[in-house]
């Protein structure tokens, strides 16, 4: 695939940045001629990934979250969300629907939602080093509306 544009951003893992980060990625992504639904999918996916960094990666301490968003000529958008937090020892388990390691009001649906609203989801993680979640979405856009 041929890259045509890229956004990189780094911000603190403060929950107030959840809204900012999904809006920023959506604003960048909107250069592709996508539907309101597709834009909503991207916002949702970014929100889940960033929340994971805050709640799990850094467990409410403050670290940096790195987002790279790449737009490809073929109408594909790739968003990668990375933290240098605690990492996940069992990625397979973490991806199971309704599994949560923290309880409370967390639903355990983060990865399920990310999978559902994207076309490809890749999770790379190493305990003590951090986690990178990469999602790809094929933008069909307004042509097929």
């Amino acid at each position, binding site marked *: 695939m041929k890259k045509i544009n890229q956004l990189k951003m780094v911000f603190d893992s403060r929950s107030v940045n959840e809204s900012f980060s999904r809006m920023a990625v959506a604003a960048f992504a909107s250069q592709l001629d996508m539907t309101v639904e597709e834009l909503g999918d991207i916002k949702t996916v970014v929100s889940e990934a960033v929340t994971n960094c805050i709640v799990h990666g850094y467990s409410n301490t403050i670290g940096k979250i790195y987002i790279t968003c790449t737009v490809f000529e073929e109408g594909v958008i790739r968003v990668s969300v990375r933290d240098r937090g605690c990492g996940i020892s069992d990625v397979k388990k973490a991806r199971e629907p309704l599994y949560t390691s923290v309880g409370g009001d967390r639903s355990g649906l*983060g990865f399920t939602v990310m999978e559902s609203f994207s076309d490809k989801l890749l999770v790379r993680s190493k305990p003590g080093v951090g986690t990178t979640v990469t999602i790809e979405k094929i933008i069909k856009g307004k042509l097929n509306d």
Partner: protein
Amino acid sequence: MPVTIKFSGEKLVAYIQGEVDHHTAPDIRDAIDDAILVNEKAKTIVLDFSRVSFMDSSGVGLVMGRYRLAISKGKSIAVENLTERDYKIMKMSGIERLAPISRKENNGRFGDAL
């Protein structure tokens, strides 16, 4: 205020406003829980999503938590006016087997704009 409460007879409606995510959920939760605990006569708690402009899986956690509280007090929960997307997210949890959930008639998103 992220939540407006309306109480009549045995029904308490909590109109949730704005974005529901991990950052905003605690304030929304506290407002709803206070209303549930104060209005002892309310038998049915309706969580109304018509004024919600964005929701991720934190919205599911919010509903699940309120469901547990309501049940423990002998009350029931209903979730109303979800967008198609939010309805889909809710259904991933299986919450519809515990509490009725319904979509908006007109699937427009409140304040739908970037």
